[in-house]
């Protein structure tokens, strides 16, 4: 595949990954966000859903690439899709910190605009006890936050220079934790919903299929290796 086509495709994937975020901004701009019954709840679910979906899209790339040698070029999109997963997970976390927690945005903004930058911090200190309480007490918050920390580490170590500095083996080991992050993310979803609510089922099935595909590939490789050894 030519460099030109790859650049075009990359631009296309960027647009695709940004589309949900642009749509959210659009909803805010044209006022329809305020017409939604519970905008904060909507933003929370929207960003959480897209964090999971982009993460799963990222995890789909490797198994699909293995289907055929001609699909090898897909690897070039894995890092960017993964970074978008981190982007949506961060928006999701910010929604919690700035909207869900009760952080007083208008007061903070008014303070900042009148030159009192510390107002943003003062407001944060007001809601921080509540957040700390959540982190201490609630396991769905704990696993969700753990997933975000993993994604942060992976994003921070994603540049090629860092990969070279770490050494391929170490880097690979660290980046296998993306499965853990996905699993924690899905667990976060299940532990958040009421008992009996099945909304996390779809992402769970997709994640399970992806994990099975990897295990299948791994078993096949072992069998092949043994055959080669025997031959």
């Amino acid at each position, binding site marked *: 595949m030519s460099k030109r086509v790859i650049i075009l495709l990359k631009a296309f994937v960027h647009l695709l990954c940004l589309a949900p975020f642009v749509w959210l901004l659009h909803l805010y701009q044209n006022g329809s966000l305020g017409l939604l*019954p*519970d*905008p904060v*709840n909507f933003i929370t679910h929207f960003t959480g859903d897209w964090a999971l979906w982009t993460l799963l899209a990222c995890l789909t790339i490797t198994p699909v690439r293995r289907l055929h040698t001609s699909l090898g070029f897909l690897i070039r999109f894995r890092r960017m899709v993964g970074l978008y997963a981190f982007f949506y997970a961060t928006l999701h976390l910010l929604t919690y910190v700035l909207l869900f927690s009760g952080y007083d945005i208008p007061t903070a903004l008014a303070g900042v605009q009148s030159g009192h930058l510390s107002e943003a911090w003062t407001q944060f200190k007001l809601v921080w006890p509540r957040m700390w309480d959540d982190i201490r007490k609630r396991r769905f918050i704990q696993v969700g936050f753990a997933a975000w920390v993993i994604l942060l580490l992976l994003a921070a170590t994603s540049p090629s220079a860092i990969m070279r500095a770490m050494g391929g083996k170490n880097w690979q080991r660290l980046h296998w934790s993306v499965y853990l992050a996905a699993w924690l993310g899905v667990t976060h979803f299940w532990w958040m919903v009421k*008992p*009996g*609510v*099945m*909304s996390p089922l779809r992402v769970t099935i997709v994640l399970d299929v992806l994990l099975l595909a990897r295990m299948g590939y791994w078993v096949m490789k072992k069998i092949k290796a043994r055959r080669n050894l025997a031959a």
Partner: protein
Amino acid sequence: MLFRKGPDIRSSEITPEGAFQKHSQDRRQFLASAAVLGAGALAATRFVGMLNPATKVFADTQKLQTIPSQYNVTETQTPEAKATAYNNYYEFGTDKSAPARNAHTLQTRPWTVQVDGMVAKPLTLDVDSIMKYRPIESRVYRHRCVEAWSMVIPWDGYSLAEFIKFCNPLPSAKYVQFITDLNKKQMPDLPFGFSFPYSEGLRLDEAMNPLALLTFGCYGNVLPNQNGAPIRVVSPWKYGFKNGKAIVKFHFTDKQPHTLWNDMAPDEYGFYANVNPTVDHPRWSQAHERRIDSSPFPKTIPTLPFNGYADQVAGIYNGMNLKRFF
């Protein structure tokens, strides 16, 4: 029976004479029709119109005739469009936007309501006669969902106490259970994994508190299906899930009735479910609530004990450990 008096009634809120005459007339008709239905005998032709379930009293108009009430909070009301588009009503889907889309399939007329259990006489009543039994008051209540969001909603109805007195429970009755309709044909989105029909209930002294509202409308209109048409309960000092919708049965009993969410997750949803900022839900704090208004980023405000109705209802629970009986 604990029956705390509310604030003094202002003269403007006294029922006008005309309304009273009308309502006492309706009351007589109601009592008569109930007696006929309950006994299942003596079809008095005078009441055929009322007994005929096809009678659609409010079919041609969605507006309700209401009188003012003393039970109003002055906080900004939640826009009607939001209160009627954000509903936990799992019979029509587990997503809060689903009932507004799906609940139109429920046919709310004809609608009969059973009264049974520990009552002097079991009754079968038409919802329209229940509706006409007392004048419909407009009451602006806070509505606090267990999910830590809240609304301010003008409900239309009359005190559940009035209806319970009419039901004539035996002295041995200690609880009243509300059973919601279960109609798989009219509820195609009924989710799996829940022990429907929806069941909720109150201790009788709670149900007799004048704040507990037998509700037929909101925002001056007949209840939209997603908000619990044609008849529901609103107990504003409790989390919203206590308020049974589309009620088909009032069951009086001496034992605490099983209730759906308490059965599903007893550690998350207590039988009492009084709004209490000091008792957390296992998955979130109940100390604050997001007040749904017209803003894209609504304010988070402190949650009040008994949802701000402590003056009227706290006495019911004297001597009770509300952390244990949450």
